[in-house]
């Protein structure tokens, strides 16, 4: 499931008297007067700004509290999509410039290297819960919070935070939960505030690959295709993936990122048996699956896959991405694209997002 839902802003139904007022002014020939002297005084301000200002105020208060003490800071737990984590959460934390020696990042899949320079400590959710339990808890959370995004601190989030604090001996830590950031940016995803307002809170920079070596070809194309709302399971898409991999495999070996770890709603696209691919990550443990995918991506000549978080991850390592998407895209997806372009530019590479209809004959 693609989670592009964002909470509704509070007072959406502001004053809508204008059409009425205009008709009245029009019938009296007072339109120019009304335009000059009445309209500027009408409360037409965008209610979205109230939401953002509220979120900004809460963030400022939280930061003031964090900076006024020497207690450890837990950032997370990040339990949602890779894409939002890379596009927003990591750049957001980087922009806050917290003292890394005080920060423990909590995420999943062994992504400590993504937080380099942000957090000197890292705790993996899979050190605290098993793969099956994680999947079960996550699906409960999604129902509970009506989507993947952690707009509030759910029961599972609390459980993870308590466990992390206990195991790492963190006494009374500050917690910077993803909800703080998600509320700050929610109006951007709803097309209500401009990009510039979001960019104030992001420090976009390339990532450094994890220091892990894998037995991989010297040069290769990395690939991962899975079905999702914007790449549905149908015969055409299955054929397209097979054909693309076959084309890519003519020049360089294709290394699939498939791990066999099943913690989200992404079903792998079956690869036709006649297409030669390497699957070095099959059977890796959940707590290192994203770390190892990062290693494969960072070493690739290019990446091809379903449009999603891994395209941005490849870009963050300076690797060009070729992503497939079946239209229509989603509105928040468009907003993510603007940040995605900046990640690619910051790493000196590019992201191609190709509609599956563009490659139909």
């Amino acid at each position, binding site marked *: 499931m693609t989670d592009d839902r964002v909470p509704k802003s509070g007072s959406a139904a502001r004053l809508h008297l*204008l059409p009425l007022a205009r008709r009245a002014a029009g019938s009296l020939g007072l339109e120019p007067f009304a335009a000059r002297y009445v309209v500027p005084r009408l409360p037409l301000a965008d209610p979205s700004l109230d939401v953002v200002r509220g979120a900004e105020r809460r963030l400022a208060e939280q930061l003031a509290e964090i900076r006024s003490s020497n207690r450890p800071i837990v950032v997370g737990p990040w339990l949602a999509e890779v894409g939002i984590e890379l596009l927003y959460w990591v750049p957001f934390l980087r922009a806050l410039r917290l003292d890394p020696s005080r920060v423990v990042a909590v995420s999943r899949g062994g992504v400590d290297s993504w937080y380099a320079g942000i957090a000197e400590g890292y705790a993996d959710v899979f050190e605290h819960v098993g793969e099956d339990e994680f999947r079960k808890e996550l699906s409960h959370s999604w129902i509970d919070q009506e989507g993947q995004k952690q707009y509030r601190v759910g029961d599972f989030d609390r459980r993870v935070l308590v466990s992390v604090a206990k195991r790492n001996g963190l006494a009374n830590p500050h917690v910077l939960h993803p909800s703080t950031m998600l509320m700050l940016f929610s109006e951007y995803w709803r097309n209500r505030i401009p990009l510039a307002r979001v960019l104030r809170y992001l420090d976009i920079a390339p990532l450094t690959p994890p220091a892990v070596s894998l037995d991989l070809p010297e040069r290769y194309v990395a690939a991962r295709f899975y079905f999702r709302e914007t790449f549905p399971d149908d015969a055409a898409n299955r054929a397209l993936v097979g054909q693309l991999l076959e084309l890519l495999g003519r020049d360089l070996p294709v290394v699939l990122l498939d791990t066999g770890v099943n913690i989200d709603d992404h079903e792998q696209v079956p690869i036709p048996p006649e297409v030669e691919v390497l699957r070095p990550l099959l059977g890796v443990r959940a707590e290192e699956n994203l770390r190892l995918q990062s290693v494969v991506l960072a070493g690739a000549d290019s990446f091809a896959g379903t449009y999603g978080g891994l395209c941005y991850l490849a870009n963050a390592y300076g690797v060009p991405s070729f992503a497939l998407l079946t239209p229509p895209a989603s509105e928040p997806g*468009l907003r993510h694209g603007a940040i995605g372009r900046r990640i690619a530019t*910051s790493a000196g590479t590019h992201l191609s997002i190709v*509609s599956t209809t563009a490659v139909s004959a």
Partner: protein
Amino acid sequence: MKFLVVVWRSKYLQNYEPVLRLLAQRGHRIHVTFSEGPTRAGSKGFSAHDVERLAHDFPGVITWDDTAPGRDPADGWLGIANRVRAYGDLVRYSHPRYRNAPLLRGRALRRSRGSQLLFGWSNARLADWLRGVARDAERAIPSSGRIEDYLRHHAPDLVLVTPLLDLGSAQPEFLKSAAKLAIPNAVGVASWDNLTNKGTIRNDPDAVFVWNEAQRREADELHDVPLERVLATGAPKFDEWFARRPTLDFAAFAAKVGLDPAQPYVLYVCSSYFVASEEPAFVERWLEALGEREFGVLVRPHPENAKRWRTADLSRFPNVVVYPRDGAAVVDEASRADYFHSLLYSKAVVGINTSALIEAAIVGKGVYTVLDPQFGGTQEGTLHFHHLLRENGGVLHVARSLEEHAAQLAAAGDEDTRAFVESFVRPAGLDVEAAPLFVDELERLAMQPARLPVATARSRLIHGALAPVAVRRRSRAPLPPRTAAKQAELLLASVRRHSRIVVGPWLRDSVEEVLYWLPYLGHLREELGLERSQLVAVSYGGVASWYEDLCGDYVDLNELLGEDTVEGLLVSRVPERERAEALVLEKLGSHAAISPSVMRRVFAPYRRGDAAIGFVAEFTKLGRIGPQGERCGAVDEAALLGDRRADRAELVRAAAGAERLVGSAAGLGLIGPSLGVETVLVGEESSEADLDLCAWTALQLGVPLSFVDRSELPLLRELAGTIRR
């Protein structure tokens, strides 16, 4: 340490690239912010691409944004600050030392919209007094809260502002706010002419970085910066010329550029537009005056003034080459090597008035000029030119006539230019690089306490006089975007009474017409209850079908004004276009019109990044534009006529019949979704607002849109050729 570098446009960053690299190598963090957005990639000069290359070399260490804040118009001081700065820069030109600089005075007058009367007195004491008043007026302007927030967010240890000195520049805001927050701050004087032919320094920065002792004196005498705060480090941007070695021999270089390797050559280095706007004509005259030569000539266009060279024809002169014809900024290894070889292998270097003459001196070349009446105002009429003259310790061979100049060139050869180079570019010694000295000073300054803002009795008095004006202006601050758009709608409502309302005339590009203008008209029609039969569309190039759903009638400007006139207007400046619009309305005898300028004002906040797509959605009505018949085949933008052409019939025809449009993300590709054509945008640096609106339009209209890098096009085509869906 963390350094914030505030740059007006990215081209100025080129001068400080060695400094930034060295800061990063020493373990400091640097954030660069541009006041006016980086120069576009592909344009001449240090572009966004080059900035990105720099950041890429130091990931996470050098970062940048193009969203440097300006003063909030709502605080009431913006207009006052602009006037104070424009007049502040103008008054310096009332000094008698600028009596022989009519072009400099004229430029300052145009920028400030000031009065020529100011120059009538031309009294040194009065000019100095006025400069003092301008300085106190700058002090009287309070620091901007918006910029303070930005500085707090980045929390730098030092703020470096460059070039600061552009006429009427708003960059003093950063120095002012940094001083208020007790952050050490400094000015980087970008080039040798900046202190004499642009604006003045009216803040009290902790340091001003200049190249040499002559500039130190200028900073003191012309800008009232105490000498102890003016640091002469040399010119970091020239460091590379001292260390560089050739990678090609003379014969290989001559062959590369197309010169006869059997003859030596003279390098003619072109000047900026301000100095020499009509340089190709002069060069022709110069070549004629040289007559029969025993040397070739390599003409090197100025990167920012190369347009005129595209069509210049010097083929009648033997062994003369214009290279690179499109101009090339010296920003990467290839362009640097090219430029270095051009200088190194030349017999002598000739120019009107350009920093290339200094670079030539660095590589030991004799530098020559001829005083030509065509450039009177920009040679001897500028103060910095005099630094190059021999009587002032310079190296320039000056001829008073072309004949004298030709004789000088015939005898030209390499020269000992070291004394000048040392005094002008490397004051600490010929072997001492400027960048490390610059960085040492930055590190020292960042450790020192900042100078706090100073208020004088006069600045308090001026503040007292201006504050009530600011309060009044605050109440007249620009309306929020939605309110302004609603107001514009209401002001237009009175056109309803007319039976014939002109919409247009449209005299801009197709992208803006399709993305903004037509959807806005759709919205207005619905919102104001206008009948289709009331509206007469006026556009150009046969786009009647685009207006068919909205307007009952269509008038084509090509028929009304002639195709050549329209073509000229499409690339003309705003006033000419406005005059043409008035003329069209007069010709059509219309008393009611909906002008595109209203739409441009409504969407300006979105296009400059101050409003979201949701705002555009509120004031547009989308629908597929033009006929939606059966479609077949793909159309490549290359097959269409480019934008800004008066004849768009081919574009309209192709877009109406194509199944797919492959086009530039910075050009005609953006109109595909609005026309209902599946579109493949080929990535190029483009307006983020236009690109986002195009993607949003595609989503709303259900038109598939792809965005691909040019390098992926072959894969895309191969894939399309193999798939049968």
